[in-house]
């Protein structure tokens, strides 16, 4: 009997969570609408284009998934780090290092068959990203350097390293001989290309890799002893230490994995979309990935839909830009607003007073009613 009640309560909580996230999204869009008005655009038209037009064509739908793949991978990495109590803001740098490491392998072994070369590229990208994340993780664990500072700063270093390699050692020989000097590598051999899922679109198998990895991360975090330790370290390092866990090593491991996932997002972009490494490879995925992870509740299985929502936002805002004539960068503001809204909305889940009101709004009003009755007495 009591058990049933508890289960009902749990169900209510879950509904409440979902409701809060959606409400936060709506609030962010509402404030975003004000921005459209300031930019002299029609917010209704802008939003309707943004959220519906991508679904009206095959191109739109496939593009959403093309964008979702790297977002999902970065988001997974961010979730691993956050769950382990370390805040990785360095996705951007880790993507770049991962991309350039993968590109170097692709260019070095053009003759290898696909089945060997692609895993090698992904492995190299993973290791590159892991190295970059690992530096911050090591500094946090053993030198007690705040990881937010170090990961942000490492982004800048990564950008410079990346551009140096693109302009120098790894530049496309054609760019040198034609004298154009665009910083990008040569196009990879076909055996370094991810398979196309739908011919005539850019949709590639990276999205499948990302979804498989999301399930793997779920299993890692919740079904294995390693994940148990990582989450324990994240929740309460003191207790984890008392229980015999090597807290420092698991923080480092979390950053290695987190960076590795961002690195693989770089691999997906070079092997799936561009087939080479070029200057604007990341398109801010390293930062958007943080929003994706938070919006997905830092849960791998929540990150799958969440990355698709943000893929839609990106594709939709491109289309909107053309339709309403408002700069697409406004979408960056809306992304920021969404983070703020979600983070602020936590108060409704944490503070019992607000929580009760929220439950009441949702129609679970038993407790509030009783209380009012009591007060009237």
């Amino acid at each position, binding site marked *: 009997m009591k058990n049933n009640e508890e289960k009902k309560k749990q169900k209510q909580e879950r509904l409440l969570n979902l409701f809060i996230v959606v409400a936060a999204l709506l609030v962010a869009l509402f404030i975003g609408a004000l921005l459209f008005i300031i930019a002299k655009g029609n917010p209704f038209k802008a939003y309707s284009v943004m959220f519906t037009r991508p679904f009206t064509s095959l191109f739109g739908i496939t593009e959403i998934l093309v964008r979702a793949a790297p977002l999902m991978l970065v988001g997974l990495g961010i979730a691993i780090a956050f769950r382990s109590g370390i805040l990785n803001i360095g996705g951007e740098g880790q993507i770049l290092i991962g991309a350039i490491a993968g590109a170097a392998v692709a260019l070095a072994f053009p003759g290898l068959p696909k089945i060997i070369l692609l895993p090698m590229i992904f492995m190299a990208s993973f290791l590159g990203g892991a190295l970059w994340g690992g530096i911050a993780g090591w500094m946090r664990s053993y030198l007690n350097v705040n990881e937010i500072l170090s990961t942000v700063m490492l982004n800048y270093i990564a950008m410079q390293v990346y551009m140096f390699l693109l302009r120098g050692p790894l530049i496309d020989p054609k760019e040198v001989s034609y004298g154009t000097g665009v910083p990008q590598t040569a196009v990879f051999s076909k055996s370094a290309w991810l398979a196309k899922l739908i011919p005539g679109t850019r949709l590639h198998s990276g999205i499948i890799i990302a979804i498989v990895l999301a399930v793997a991360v779920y299993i890692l975090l919740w079904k294995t*002893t390693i994940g148990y330790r990582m989450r324990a370290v994240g929740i309460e390092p003191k207790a984890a230490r008392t229980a015999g866990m*090597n807290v420092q090593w698991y923080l480092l491991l979390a950053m290695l994995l987190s960076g590795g996932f961002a690195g693989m997002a770089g691999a997906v972009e070079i092997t799936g979309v561009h087939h080479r490494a070029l200057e604007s490879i990341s398109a801010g995925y390293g930062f958007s990935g943080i929003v994706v992870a938070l919006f997905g509740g830092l849960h791998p299985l929540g990150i799958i839909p969440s990355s698709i929502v943000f893929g839609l936002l990106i594709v939709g805002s491109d289309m909107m830009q053309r339709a309403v004539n408002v700069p697409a960068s406004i979408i960056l503001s809306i992304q920021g607003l969404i983070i703020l809204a979600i983070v602020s909305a936590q108060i409704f889940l944490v503070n019992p007073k607000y929580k009760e009101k929220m439950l009441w709004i949702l129609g679970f009003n038993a407790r509030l009613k009783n209380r009012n009755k009591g007060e009237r007495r």
Partner: protein
Amino acid sequence: MAERIQQLEMKHISKRFPGVLALDDVSITLKNGEILALLGENGAGKTTLMNILYGLYHQDEGTVLIDNEVIHVKSPKDALLHKIGMVHQHFMLVPNLTVLENIALGYFQNTRFKLDLGLVRKKMMDISVRYDMAVNPDAYIWQLSVGEQQRVELVKTLTLGANLLILDEPTAALTPQQTDELIDLLKEMAKDNNSIIFISHKLNEVKTVSSKIAVLRNGKLVHEGPTGSYSVTELAEQMAGRQINLPKSPEKSKFGDVMLDIKKVWAHNDQGAWGLQGLDLQLKAGEILGIAGVSGNGQKELADVINGVRKVEKGDILLDNWNITNHSAQKIIDQGLGYIPEDRLHEGTLPAFSVRENLILKDYTTSQMSSSIFLKKKVIDSFAEDLIETFNIKCPDMYTSCASLSGGNIQKVILAREITRKPKVLIAAYPIRGLDIGAAEYVHQRLIEARGAGMAVLLISEELEEILDLCDRIAVIYEGKILKVLSGSEADNRKLGLLMAGVTDEE
């Protein structure tokens, strides 16, 4: 001197928190010069009631009257204007400021811009002389002992003009001698036309200090009356609402082999000074050895070095003849050490983890619970179910987060986990701190059972009664060393109290 509060009345106070009725129609009165002891188990509503009086909470129903006038206390500042002051259990002092500056903090809010330290100093010295409470206004708080800090809190409250004092568990961190001094001081203050409300669960103190007693249970006032008419046991039963007997461990003369041998161990404390200075201690199988001492004398460091989370600089620690000095915590746990930490919520459990996940915190790597890296869900489920049942852990289901349990139930989770592993040595640090009597009874019962099962139990505590009731031998820790080890039968309150204060040559 300004006018004194002649009479305080709290009438029909009710307060609800979501899902709980914290106070249900509670009325108390207090006259000038009286000391009212407010008794009750944890969660009975003592602190809620006082927080309402002090303006931290607001009652849903009921009125507060001072000298027959209704008052509305909106904030602690308001309370002070009504001459009501509170000394919290955890002192509200800024360590990096001097005594005088700390007291002036309260003043600062009353005058807009100007801070007249000279005036504060004069007022403060007046109070200090009047009640014979010596405090050095220019000492920094961090330089003072706990007892001295308490005195500062009292002087502060009086200097700010309060003459109705609320003291929340004031003796929690004091030695028996310091407690006696405080009690005398409070009596002195009451004679001088101050009124005092004294929150405590230590019945003996309550008996000596108070003139009136109010007992709360589950938010209801179950008893109010003069102190003299009830015995300590009767009061305890009033509090718990049933008969209770805190278990005493039966005397025992034969013990097993030495299980834990600590040889001249030195270790730093968190500040980098020596926390342990050549500590020597032997613990045998089948005994409960108590570590008595004023907190801050090396108890924390001792528990840490045994558990392998603090570096031993010099000396050795042997667990069942294995040298575990500076081994990793994991190795020591595998070697057979159980630990019930002081901070049960943040060291003993992972608050956001479920009860189920907390119960396997030390065993998840055993071949029983996981194969290679994968956790065995079914085995863990039935393991958790068993433990919840055996240890009577009250939780909706095993997936409930530990943070949402009561203190007593969290302690049961830890006990279940640690005792079920059958460790050779079990360290219990302040195992009943903050627990109500019923839960404390349960914890003690389990510790005695552990002793019966042949475990070597090390009980670190500052509650002398707990130590005297349970321990076969008692070691007094002082400044990082064991000052003396007494047998349970030769120890008493007075002897221990002197030793805890560092006095060895009493004869």
